[in-house]
């Protein structure tokens, strides 16, 4: 246990799982169209429990950082299996990016099959929307022995330019920390400070609304059909009914959930987020920071707060 700005940081650990991941880059003629396409693509992407994938903006890209020199965003997506990712990404590309005026879509992980044998289709499937009028362009690029392939699909504002496919890589889902305190204002402030500080960190996302989940879940349910249910140990209204992990002065908990492309990316983001939260609301309603786990039996990646915060 450590104390930071008057906030107790428990010697607990977050338990995270292997996932399959990818990154795409969405651009637009201006920032607003790029953002519109990105928000649509990442909508309803908070949890794999029912959304299929967990997806969010990784960070905003300047025109100098995008493949086509226009404003854009990089998006990370995580799923429990490669086949689910292969199903969800083309579906969202077709309905959310193809449809958005002026948008274009590129692989956010550079390298061809020789570097990343597992692929997620992008233009490979969306091209058929062109009804035979689609045009393929293969051009030399570093990391692509046979060249990098783009599709140009005629649409009502010109052409939708979309890369052929993108690499599928390994990721980690379910990194987390919980902010506990005694007022909604304080924990909201702590949450927002944490997520703001984590916003531009590479290789990670916080897919829940505003980066935070209030419906932390435990494994299993009294109802056989459900495999997850409310985390009663952190529900303040159940403090007197169930074995609670809340202390008497704690009336509210919010959980920041992190998916990342590497252990280090998640560990670093936890450190940045917890530090920002403690600075913002320590001594002012944020009382304790802890992390969620299942006893270490379910996920092989353990983020010990004591180690991460060093």
């Amino acid at each position, binding site marked *: 246990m450590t104390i930071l700005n008057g906030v107790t940081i428990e010697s607990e650990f977050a338990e995270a799982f292997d996932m399959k991941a990818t990154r795409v880059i969405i651009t637009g003629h201006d920032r607003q169209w790029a953002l519109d396409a990105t928000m649509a693509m990442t909508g309803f992407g908070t949890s794999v429990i029912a959304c299929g994938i967990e997806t969010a903006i990784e960070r905003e890209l300047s025109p100098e950082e995008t*493949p*086509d*020199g*226009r404003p854009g965003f990089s998006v990370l997506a995580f799923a429990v299996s490669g086949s689910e990712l292969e199903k969800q990404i083309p579906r969202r590309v077709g309905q959310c990016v193809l449809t958005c005026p002026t948008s*274009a879509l590129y692989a956010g992980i550079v390298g061809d099959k020789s570097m990343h044998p597992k692929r997620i289709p992008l233009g490979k499937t969306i091209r058929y929307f062109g009804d035979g*009028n689609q*045009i*393929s*362009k*293969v*051009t*030399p*690029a570093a990391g692509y*022995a*046979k*060249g*990098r392939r*783009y599709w*140009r699909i005629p649409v009502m504002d*010109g*052409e939708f*330019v979309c890369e052929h496919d993108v690499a599928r890589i390994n990721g980690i889902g379910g990194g987390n920390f919980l902010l506990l305190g005694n007022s909604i204002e304080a924990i909201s402030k702590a949450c927002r400070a944490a997520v703001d500080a984590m916003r531009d960190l590479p290789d990670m996302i916080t897919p829940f609304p505003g980066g935070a989940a209030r419906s932390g879940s435990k494994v299993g349910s009294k109802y056989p059909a459900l495999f997850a249910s409310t985390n009663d140990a952190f529900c303040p209204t159940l403090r007197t009914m169930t074995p609670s992990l809340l202390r008497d002065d704690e009336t509210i908990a919010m959980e920041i959930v992190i998916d990342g492309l590497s252990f280090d990316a998640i560990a670093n983001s936890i450190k940045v987020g917890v530090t920002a939260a403690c600075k913002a609301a320590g001594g002012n309603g944020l009382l304790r920071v802890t992390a969620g786990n299942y006893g270490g039996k379910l996920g092989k990646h353990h983020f010990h707060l004591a180690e991460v915060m060093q």
Partner: protein
Amino acid sequence: MTKWTLTQKQKPPENKVETCAENIDASPIDAKNFGDKSLAEIKKISLGRQTIGDWFDVQDSDGPDTVELRGDLRRFDHIGAALSSGELKVVGDAGNFLGGAADGKRLGMSGGRIVITGNVGDYAGHRMRRGEIWICGNVGRFAAAHMVAGTIVIAGKIGHDFAIGMRRGSLIVSQMPILADGRFSDPVESDFLIASLIAPPETGHLVEFWSRLQDQQVSTRRGDRAVGGQGEIVTPH
């Protein structure tokens, strides 16, 4: 990974009626033919009646798989005809059927990039299938004839009978050439976003030409309608 540089030792005789000199089929000059061979073996590769060693000094150095030809290659036909990846560059002029189908084959180059710093003869890109040809200078007659797909960029002037029988592919030219009547659509103005994804060779004035395509709208004509083609001829508007 090797870069091979072939420097011309002797020029072929002028092609006059008196000499009946044949053009040389240069299609065996290809990095994938050189990959596992020593310099001595490469020099023995046949180019018709003579060998690579008869025409060129051959040197190798570290670098991505590329072949650079230096000299006056106006009598060398079918350069890059079987290219499928990597880059083949000619510092100088090139002959007929650049990247075009050779040796009775149905298709020309199928990938990679050919860069010519000078001018090119007739039938450039004849029946090419995929890949890019970048030409800093002028091209002769029947360029892109029966082109199947791919991209040809021409910064200089273009001879007659351009893109006859073109089925697909992109011809990106500094100015719209005279085209056969009725075979291509009227020009359409649009943005050309794909230009920003293609890095031009840093040779001649190709970089400057390419930046014009990104900075302004382009005019595009589609055809050849005589063969139901969906190719495009693109020029800065």
